[in-house]
């Protein structure tokens, strides 16, 4: 009973019993419901995880009152945010102010499209999958700029401008790191990249270039999702919350949710590119070992790898102090970009000479 099997049954049943157009729309609807459901679940789980990880790293206990072990704390928080008044301040640009959280949210949803959640369980296996993710994820800066600009508040505007500078710069090295894997695997399609890791994940097969690219990718996506130590866009102690200073209630919750969903998406992409997506851990010709690994379902592999990367990013957040804006740009333009350019060159040499396994 794999996810692929279930989706195939549903697909065949719909097309056998309904006309093609109606069946297609019903599939759209099912996918929409699933994505929104995944959003809600991710928001609850990831915020809980963040609070627990942070408290454990600081030798605290964390939320432990609502439900067993504090499990329902985020549910209670969500209910509180839903019943709060969604206030729109008087002097804001009403249209931009109100649609900004939805734009950020929708971008996070669109990036979900090419992610392979399990074997054969993917919304859209587009032939430029990786490029699509890079292109669409950079639109979210427009939502943030919109929120900051329309708030009519100097802190919001400064936060949004910082966020813009940051995302535009770090996109470069994230793109370079992704290109390294594209060069090694020889395809932009997500399924091609995963298939190329049949004999081992790229982080093992790709020698030094893959490892360097992985480190650079993790640093760059931490910056792209505006998380500490790169959370200058909200920098509580300088900007009282940055671009979402003026937001409250559910509109604030949407920004908050979008941040966590973005983390999930970039970690899923990282897991797909470097850790083999849903591909089980295979080593060249150890038949027995590979066979045992195949018994673990592919969705478990995907979720496990993704949550491992999410944990690493949370680990960053609760360890490192925040960078200054000049240090932030220095890190990108003086260190990450030259290193990733050189690394891409090295990866090309490795790929051409066929030195990878």
């Amino acid at each position, binding site marked *: 009973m794999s996810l692929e099997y279930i989706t195939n049954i549903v697909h065949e049943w719909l097309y056998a019993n309904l006309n093609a157009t109606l069946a297609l729309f019903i599939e759209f609807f099912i996918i929409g419901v699933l994505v929104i459901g995944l959003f809600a679940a991710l928001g609850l789980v990831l915020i809980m995880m963040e609070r627990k*990880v942070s*408290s*454990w*790293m*600081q*030798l*605290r*206990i964390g939320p432990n009152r609502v439900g067993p072990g504090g499990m329902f704390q985020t549910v209670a928080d969500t209910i509180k945010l839903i019943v709060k008044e969604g206030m729109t301040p008087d002097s804001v640009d009403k249209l931009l102010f109100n649609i900004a959280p939805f734009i950020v949210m929708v971008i996070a949803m669109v990036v979900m499209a090419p992610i392979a959640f399990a074997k054969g369980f993917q919304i859209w296996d587009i032939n430029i999958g990786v490029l699509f993710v890079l292109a669409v994820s950079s639109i979210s800066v427009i939502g943030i700029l919109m929120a900051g600009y329309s708030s009519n508040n100097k802190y919001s505007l400064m936060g949004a401008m910082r966020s813009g500078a940051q995302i535009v710069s770090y996109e470069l090295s994230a793109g370079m790191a992704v290109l390294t894997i594209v060069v090694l695997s020889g395809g932009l399609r997500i399924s091609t990249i995963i298939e190329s890791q049949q004999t081992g994940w790229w982080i093992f097969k790709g020698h030094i270039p893959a490892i360097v690219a992985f480190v650079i990718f993790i640093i760059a996506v931490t910056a792209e999702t505006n998380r500490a130590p790169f959370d200058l866009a909200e920098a509580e102690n300088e900007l009282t919350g940055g671009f979402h200073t003026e937001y409250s209630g559910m509109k604030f919750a949407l920004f908050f949710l979008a941040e966590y969903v973005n983390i999930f998406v970039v970690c899923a992409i990282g897991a797909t590119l470097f850790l083999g997506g849903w591909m089980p851990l295979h080593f060249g010709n150890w038949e027995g070992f590979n066979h045992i690994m195949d018994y673990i379902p592919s969705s478990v592999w995907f979720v496990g790898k993704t949550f491992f990367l999410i944990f690493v990013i949370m*680990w*960053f957040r*609760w*360890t*490192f102090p925040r960078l200054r804006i000049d240090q932030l740009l220095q890190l990108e333009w003086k*260190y990450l970009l030259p*290193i990733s350019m050189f690394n891409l060159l090295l990866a090309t040499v490795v790929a051409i000479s066929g030195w990878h396994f």
Partner: protein
Amino acid sequence: MGLGNYIKEVASGVKSLLTGMKVTGRLFLRHHKDKLTEQYPNNKATLTMAERFRGEVVMKHDENNEHACTGCTACELACPNATIKIITRFDVTPEGKKKKALDTFVYHLQLCTMCNLCIEACPTDAIKMAQTFEHSVFDRSQLIKKLNQPGSKIRAGVE
């Protein structure tokens, strides 16, 4: 900046970041043993306050219900916000002499900032800071306390 310096800088940066991650990673794995949070209302039975915690001023009494306060008002003078009011009386000694003695030690808890100046000022070490901290009451008149116990008298030999 030469290439060698550049590489050295990157390497030392990565090393220091990994050192930081090692610390938090270790704490993450050990949190169940080392956690610092006091689950206050639940651990009332085992809660121990730090020795230097300053909760309120109390007067020391020994088993004979005797204290060491001579009523000299040094604490009252030392108090920066009039928390302490000392009422004295004159006892007549067996020799027929009048002697100043403590009648009532009035302590206004609601005014006290726990600054410890009264304890430092006391020449006979009669008062001390207690570790109690659950001071909330429903009526503020309950915050005005009488520190010397009823029927207590000064310990013999304390001048």
